[in-house]
């Protein structure tokens, strides 16, 4: 896609000139310092940078939610510091935030979309028209009368975009709208955004996802409150040392391209998988002067998972689900003893309930990292809570380390062995100091003070935080988002669990945070800890897991090694996407380069190079 060719004259819609901004006292480090930039009408700008680099602050200055402490910010010629300009600025530069549920003002989708126009004093007939149009644009017209609480995160976020569009803005400011969404939700948002941009709406998009950044025509990268880069995103990604310094990462396909270049193959530096596949195929042909494709039938089709580590026979399983069903309608409290059902009805007999999980059976050997994948509402989170005895099955049994989760006598023992990291675990922080929060688990288990002390220190260190006196005495609420996540993780690991269950541990993290967490999971795995994790990122699953269980509508639809799962053409998987390396392998096959399937970049690079050398 060519860069925006908008004429430069008098079309600037947002202009920041020498803007300084700081939260709180003057003594604090400024959130933004000496920012100068112009955004032209029709541009598609992405704003990148590590956590705390000032991205959110920057976009909030663009619609007068924040006002510069020094310098000026103008939107369509209106100074954001003037009180009279605030309403017209916010109407023209509408904003969508990170958390979809915090933007819904009422319990009916259409009524929520109408909120902005109502505030602008639009006559009711026109509001109705605007609501219909906006919902149609984001493909949510069918949900006009739904309750936002019943929608998936991706759908809610599209409603939020509709709410912004109903104000008829000329600029759309997006503050990490995809951070809390799964792959399907994110790609829907990306499609909507691209479509709006084609219609002439200027886009300013803050994101932690580099593939989203590549779709923009311009990248503004922030580093500790200053603009470190402003230009074509591909130009930024062409400078690996810059990307590392700015706490970013390369988009998945570009990452593979760069790895191939480093390995000596002259391929194009591109983030587009099709272009990259063509380029690799071309580079492999060059110098050989031949075009015939060598097709090795053994590599065209997937190999069976012989290479895969199979657990030692006879070893007691870490987690065993035996014909487990769970329904929210007939669930009993996990704290209560199972009672003989009244009136002679057995729980199994209550037929017409919908099950969140139905007849699920699997055993997971100790030391396995097992990923659970599936669409929103497929029962993944329910399975995780069942494995932690936070729910007990309606039918069937769940054993963890040989302990039945329904056995109240051994519940305490079970808690010691299983750690549960909920979605956004930082939200469970409560104590006055970091120390007390991490110590909560060990103390509940009745550990002596000196043992608690040791566990707290070890857990924090394992999570990448040096347990200094200053840190231990700080309030967990005063830490940055990434550090809060680490403290919350430490609070779970301090109990020295043998099985750790993680529900979307990567959600909402920046690239540095994701890399740090991946390293931590790797260390736990090497230490022999069994990991059960829910993930929406197939690249994470391919890199971390040695077993994958796919769920759909409460049923186990696929179970096996990642290779076997990803190479199957299960319909569920089509929705979830595939690891980048596998997508590229398939595109290469279309170009006549047949390789054995790879799931991770390093493996693919090795296979491509070997293929080149063999010819």
């Amino acid at each position, binding site marked *: 896609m060519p860069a925006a060719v908008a004429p430069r004259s008098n079309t600037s819609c947002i202009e920041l000139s020498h803007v300084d901004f700081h939260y709180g006292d003057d003594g604090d480090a400024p959130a933004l310092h000496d920012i100068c930039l112009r955004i032209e009408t029709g541009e598609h700008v992405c704003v990148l940078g590590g956590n705390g680099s000032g991205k959110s602050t920057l976009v909030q200055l663009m619609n007068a939610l924040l006002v510069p402490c020094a310098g000026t910010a103008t939107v369509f010629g209106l100074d954001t510091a003037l009180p009279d300009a605030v309403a017209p600025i916010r109407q023209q530069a509408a904003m969508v935030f990170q958390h979809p549920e915090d933007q819904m003002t009422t319990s009916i989708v259409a009524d929520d979309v109408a909120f902005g126009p109502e*505030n602008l004093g639009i006559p009711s007939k026109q509001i109705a028209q605007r609501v219909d149009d906006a919902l149609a644009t984001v493909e949510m017209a069918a949900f006009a009368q739904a309750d936002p609480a019943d929608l998936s995160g991706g759908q809610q976020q599209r409603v939020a975009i509709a709410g912004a569009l109903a104000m008829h803005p000329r600029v759309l400011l997006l503050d990490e709208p995809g951070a809390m969404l799964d792959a399907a939700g994110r790609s829907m948002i990306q499609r909507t955004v691209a479509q709006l941009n084609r219609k002439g709406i200027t886009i300013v998009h803050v994101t932690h996802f580099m593939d989203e950044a590549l779709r923009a025509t311009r990248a503004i990268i922030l580093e500790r409150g200053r603009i470190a880069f402003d230009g074509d995103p591909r130009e930024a990604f062409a400078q690996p040392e810059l990307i590392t310094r700015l706490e970013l990462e390369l988009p998945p396909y570009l990452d593979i391209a760069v790895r191939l270049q480093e390995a000596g193959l002259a391929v194009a530096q591109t983030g587009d998988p099709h272009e990259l596949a063509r380029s690799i195929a071309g580079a492999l042909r060059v110098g050989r002067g031949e075009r015939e494709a060598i097709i090795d039938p053994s590599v065209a089709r997937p190999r069976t998972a012989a290479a895969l580590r199979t657990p030692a026979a006879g070893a007691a399983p870490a987690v065993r689900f035996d014909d487990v069903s769970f329904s929210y309608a007939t669930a009993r409290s996990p704290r209560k003893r199972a009672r003989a059902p009244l009136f002679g009805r057995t729980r199994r007999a209550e037929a017409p309930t919908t099950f969140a999980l139905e007849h699920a059976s699997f055993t997971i050997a100790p030391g396995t990292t097992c990923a659970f994948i599936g669409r929103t509402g497929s029962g993944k989170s329910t399975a995780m809570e069942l494995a932690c005895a936070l729910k007990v099955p309606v039918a069937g049994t769940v054993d963890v380390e040989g302990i039945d989760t329904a056995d109240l006598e051994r519940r305490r023992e079970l808690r010691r062995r299983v750690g549960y990291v909920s979605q956004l675990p930082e939200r469970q922080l409560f104590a006055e100091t970091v120390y007390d929060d991490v110590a909560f688990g060990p103390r509940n288990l009745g550990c002596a003070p000196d043992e608690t002390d040791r566990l707290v220190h070890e857990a924090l260190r394992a999570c990448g935080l040096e347990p200094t006196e200053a840190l231990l005495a700080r309030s967990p609420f005063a830490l940055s988002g990434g550090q809060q996540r680490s403290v919350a993780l430490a609070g779970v690991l301090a109990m020295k669990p043998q099985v750790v269950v993680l529900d979307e541990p990567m959600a909402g993290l920046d690239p540095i945070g994701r890399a740090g967490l991946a390293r931590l999971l790797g260390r736990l795995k090497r230490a022999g800890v069994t990991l059960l994790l829910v993930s929406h990122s197939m690249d994470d699953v391919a890199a971390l897991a040695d077993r994958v269980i796919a769920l759909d509508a409460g049923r186990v639809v696929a179970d096996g090694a990642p290779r076997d799962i990803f190479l199957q053409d299960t319909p569920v998987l089509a929705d979830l996407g595939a690891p980048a390396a596998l997508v590229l392998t398939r595109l290469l096959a279309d170009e006549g380069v047949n390789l054995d399937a790879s799931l991770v970049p390093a493996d693919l690079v090795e296979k491509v190079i070997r293929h080149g050398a063999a010819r």
Partner: protein
Amino acid sequence: MALRASIGQYYSASSPLHRLDPRAKLAATVAFMASCFFVHTGAQLVLAAAAVLAAICAAHVPMGRLLSQIKPIALFLVVTSIVNLFFVQTGAVVAAWGPVSIHAGGVEAAVLYTARFFLLLLAGSLLMLTTTPTAITDAIERVFAPLERLGVLVGQASTILSIALRFVPTLSREAEHILAAQTARGADLENKGALAFARACVPLVVPLFSSALRHADNLGRAMDARCYMSGPARTHYHELKLDVRRDGPFIALVAVYLGVLAIL
């Protein structure tokens, strides 16, 4: 969701009751609920029950959905009815076992009080099920608009009400998540004295508070971004206009009901 609160749950459908002007519905429901306290005779009870039954028929809401709304209070109703049965000692003795006796007054109170409270709840649930929260808050805003002149911020109050209804499911789901996470870390709320129980609640209450504050903060910003200034220029998506052909018969029926109830 197991804990999913059913307060303010709207049931989307297109029935005569759904289409009514929310102001008429709100006023009629309040009038009916008040009238329940004046039900003293069997005939009155039958009339009130007939009125609710007619409304249920006109609402096109599944019976299960309606009953599930009032289920939480049903136990309370049963208890009060039993208390009435044994403790109201007026009228002739109907039955007696040793020191325990049931009087006619007790039976009457047990049946009458329970039945009319039940009808009252059904009417309230029907209003919530057939009226969107926005329509209810719009109606409240319009009905109480004259109070604006006395300095009461009716518009803001109704927006607050709408948001509160919206966040009930969100917060109850979050409470569930926090409870799960802390339980997994060995938190235990059972078998504790009052003080220990209060202390054990801290790990649940603090995150819930901080999460409520975070929602408030985010929502405030999102509302600001959508030009919520609570100025006088605010318009309404749903225009409220009394329609004689739609609302007229309903208002007439309510008037007839109230009139007959007064005569009986």
